[in-house]
């Protein structure tokens, strides 16, 4: 709640003409905007450029922000749309949930294998997996599990329906475990 109050005070100052107050919002949200951009573009330079474009768009449109949603949700929506228009939006596929069930032993195996390596390596492998999977799946996983956005907030950001987000999330999780299994397997082979 305090975060939202801080954002509101800051936005009021920006709208009133105090341009420098915007740097407070940039510092607060640049990490997540950059991470989302990186999940889409898979390249640090392009991601930084996209993050900059997003903040400039947000600055120019900040007077139109009416506090109907959280500022962060509004900002991530701009990030999502900017990235999608850069990648050209693909058709939303429908998936049969039964065909994307994740076997329990796969989840547990990946979890145990990952816990046996150092924290630095764990972070590296998770980044690699999130880079390898489909861009939108990667962003949805990041929003839901890393940034802890709710399903409804993700609907607001992406423009998908609730059921579509749930299906995508399910499919993204399956894809994540498949890639993680492959990467950990490759790593084990390279060590041997």
């Amino acid at each position, binding site marked *: 709640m305090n975060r939202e109050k801080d954002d509101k005070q800051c936005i*009021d*100052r920006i709208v*009133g*003409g*105090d*341009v*420098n107050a*915007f*740097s407070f919002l*940039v*510092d607060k949200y*640049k*990490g*997540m905007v*950059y*991470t989302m951009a*990186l999940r889409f573009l898979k390249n640090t330079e392009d*991601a*930084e450029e996209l*993050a*900059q474009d997003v*903040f*400039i768009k947000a*600055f120019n449109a900040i007077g139109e922000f009416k506090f109907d949603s959280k500022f962060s949700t509004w900002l991530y929506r701009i990030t999502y749309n900017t990235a999608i228009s850069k990648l050209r939006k693909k058709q939303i596929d429908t998936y049969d949930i039964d065909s994307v069930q*994740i076997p*329990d*032993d796969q*989840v*547990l195996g*990946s*979890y145990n294998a*990952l816990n046996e390596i150092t*924290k630095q390596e*764990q*972070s590296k492998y*998770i*980044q690699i997996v*999130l880079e390898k999977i489909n861009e939108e799946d990667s962003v949805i*996983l*990041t929003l839901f*599990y*890393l*940034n802890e956005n709710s399903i409804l907030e993700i609907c607001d950001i992406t423009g998908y329906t609730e059921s579509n987000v749930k299906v995508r999330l399910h499919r993204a*999780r399956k894809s*994540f475990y498949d890639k*993680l299994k492959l990467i950990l397997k490759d790593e084990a082979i390279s060590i041997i």
Partner: protein
Amino acid sequence: MKNINLDIEKITRELIQKGEIQQPGTDFTKNLMATILKNPDVNIQFVKEEKDKNFIWVLLSILLMFIGYIGYYIYKNGLNTISDAKEIPAFSNLKYGYDFFIRLWSEFSFSPYILIAFLGILLLILFDKIIIKYLYTI
């Protein structure tokens, strides 16, 4: 293994949080603010004062002080003395203040030094606005 009731949500959250939120370069905010401030359409105002709100509070405070003063005077001297308004000290103080400003105004002149001082203040304000833009560009 199949009998183990796994909390896939919890495990996935734990795994993905190992990935951490990444950060752009250290100069990201500085470069971004420089880009925004370079835009000639951007109007810089460094401190936003809630002037209207402050003005109302000042007026209210003055009014309250005045009412308080009159109330105190009546309490101290009784209602009868109020009829002779000239004897109320506040009015004599107001008269002194009025005389002071009249005298000051008659002695005030627009000498070149005063004009130069005003010009200096204007230049300092302009310099202050420009230097911030410049600092963001370097």
